[in-house]
């Protein structure tokens, strides 16, 4: 038992953090709202060069052959910087999914994704009962991985290339998210994997998004603590008022307990276990913690936080988008409930779960 990242994992996350501090300051995030693709120019190339995009890719396909346990700390840092790059969709979902599928598909697409030559969009979870109506980066992607109900009536993963879809832009509250409705036709030729692979891909997306949310929340908390130390009202820093202290302590508490469940979600994806349960726990905690951090940040900042000239809204709006994009916290608690409450009592002995 050792529940902490390795030195290598810490070093990798630190390196990404350094890169993002340099290449993705708040003004760059703000600028991404105005670029056609909602991205920071050149940033993806830097992440490719560092190997981030291929962390989970097989070495034979140009990747580092590592795992979600190595990616999870990196994702926290991309959240902390509010980097508007598709690390979740490409590095945590598309690449490992295609590698799992293997064969020619993996050989074609994984190397080009890892090298930054091609771009991918993922639509596996979004949409309430209506399939995958809206997908981020769908219009710009070379390849789309989409969930659909197949002829068997079961959920499947399909791969379609850009020319096979038409897209209609939809605006997100987060101006850096380029969403689009995707019009496409699943066929037996586009089907690349079944329900199980879809589930694993979705679970990876959940854990990865949860990690980003933890980073977003942590960044808002840090900024707000700094603001509360400096901003004075009634002749002293507002951070010396107990109401402000307690708001911030409660937000910190949520983040403190979210991080371990996110890490465990990554662990289960790699070492096995109930990935649906553990990824949903990760998302439920991270979404609530990040949401509360945002609410707290805005309330403590007051009116200045309510302006677009101040940076806070860049983080806050990303949270508002991501906290429900893969199903919201309550949806994920219901997934856990189905496993914890509706299965046989015997299966719920917690002391057995590491032996599963």
């Amino acid at each position, binding site marked *: 038992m050792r529940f902490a990242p390795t030195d290598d994992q810490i070093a990798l996350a630190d390196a990404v953090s350094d890169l993002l501090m340099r290449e993705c300051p708040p003004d760059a995030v703000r600028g991404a709202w105005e670029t056609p693709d909602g991205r920071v120019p050149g940033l993806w190339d830097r992440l490719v060069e560092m190997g981030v995009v291929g962390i989970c890719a097989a070495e034979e396909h140009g990747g580092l052959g590592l795992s979600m346990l190595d990616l999870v700390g990196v994702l926290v840092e991309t959240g902390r910087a509010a980097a508007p790059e598709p690390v979740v969709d490409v590095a945590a979902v598309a690449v490992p999914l295609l590698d799992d599928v293997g064969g020619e598909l993996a050989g074609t697409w994984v190397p080009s994704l890892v090298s930054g030559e091609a771009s991918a969009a993922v639509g596996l*979870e*979004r*949409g*309430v*009962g209506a399939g995958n109506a*809206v997908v981020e980066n769908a219009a710009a992607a070379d390849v789309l991985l989409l969930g659909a109900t197949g002829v068997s009536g079961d959920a499947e993963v399909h791969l379609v290339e850009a020319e096979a879809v038409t897209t209609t832009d*939809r*605006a*997100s*509250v*987060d101006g850096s*998210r380029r*969403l689009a409705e995707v019009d496409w036709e699943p066929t037996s030729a586009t089907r690349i994997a079944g329900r199980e692979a879809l589930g694993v891909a979705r679970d990876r997306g959940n854990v990865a998004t949860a990690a980003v949310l933890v980073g977003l929340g942590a960044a808002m908390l840090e900024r707000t603590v700094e603001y509360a130390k400096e901003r*004075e*009202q*009634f002749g002293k820093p*507002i951070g010396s*008022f107990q*109401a*402000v202290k307690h708001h911030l302590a409660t937000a910190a508490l949520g983040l403190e307990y979210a991080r371990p469940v996110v890490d465990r979600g990554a662990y289960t994806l790699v070492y096995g276990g109930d990935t649906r349960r553990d990824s949903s726990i990760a998302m439920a905690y991270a979404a609530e913690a990040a949401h509360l951090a945002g*609410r707290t940040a*805005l*309330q403590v900042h*007051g*009116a200045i*936080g*309510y*302006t*677009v*000239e101040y940076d806070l*809204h860049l983080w*806050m709006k990303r949270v*508002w*988008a991501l906290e*429900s*994009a*893969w*199903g*919201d916290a*309550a*949806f994920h608690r*219901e997934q856990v409930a*189905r496993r914890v409450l509706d299965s046989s009592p015997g299966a719920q002995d917690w002391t057995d779960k590491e032996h599963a």
Partner: protein
Amino acid sequence: MDLRFSSSEDAFRAEVRAWMDGNVPASPLPSGDTAEGFAAHLDWERQLFDAGWAAVSWPEEYGGRGATLWKWLIFEEEYWRAGAPNRVNQNGLFLLAPSIFAFGTDEQKARFLPKIAASEYLFCQGWSEPNAGSDLAGITSRAVRDDAAGGWRLTGQKTWTTRGAFCNWLFGLFRTDPDQERHRGLSYFLVPLDGEGVTVRPVGRLDGDDGFAEVFLEDVVVTDDLVLGEVDQGWRVAMSTTSSERGLSLRSPGRFMAAATQLTALYREQRDAVEAGLLDPGLRDAVVRAWMDADAYRLHTFRTVTRMTDGEELGAEASFMKLFWSELDVSLHETALGLLGPEAELDVDGWMKGYQFSLAGPIYAGTNEIQRNVVAERVLGLPR
């Protein structure tokens, strides 16, 4: 105890409803916090004025109908029930005007009230300054006596001035006695924004609108007739305004009843997804909580209006109202976003924008932390 409206009140309701049914724009106006939307809203406000609905509770001589508080509540219920536009002129109508009624000279009443009702004078508020937010008494903008000009020279900076970029007047506090501190030595000024020395800079707001402005004043001359109440006694006038702001006039129950009704409609649309476990099963409870809270807010307002009708003043209890409606509004909108699930970020039917707007509630007009202090100290009597 009698919760029935009189036949005269019922008739009034019917009259309002008929007019609203015939006049409320069929599709929503663009946001009143953009230049384009503000103009469209002004047309609507003037249409209201022409029909005598701009300020129903004011005396007829100032452009109202002399309606009772009960009829005002009925008007508001029908207004929001009909889905009529937000009032971009609300600062003048609901925040400044009560103070003019209470503290203005006859000349000030005659000059300002009709023009406010007619949306000719469009007032924004000038409370906050960069270093005076929650701590309103920290104001440093100053007014220096200039007898030659027949008035005062104003210098300073006001900020978070909602719709300041579109208004032509500002009301706010300035320090007239530099030897006094905190809430002493302040005076309440009405400042024309087209005067020399005024610079207005729009500031973008969270929800994407240009709703805020910074107002810079440098040696702006205002004459004595633009001081509301006595010189150096501005705090008292301002407190009457903030009491209006916190309490009754800023947020009538009709607004939240209408929002709660929209929420129940949204729930019915999404019920299947809730019952299938695709959305939070707890949303049913959250929806009914929001509906009950709006209902409770309405009943509490009935109680408050009864007391006011009996001649009581709305005091520190106004902080209860501010706390209740602002927290209700946030949770009502969070519930709506929950019902939209992954679609929430797409701003379906304006719920995401409405959520962002609701988040201002616990901040402006005195943060909810300040309001809880007020309740604790002035209602419960706890030591400062």
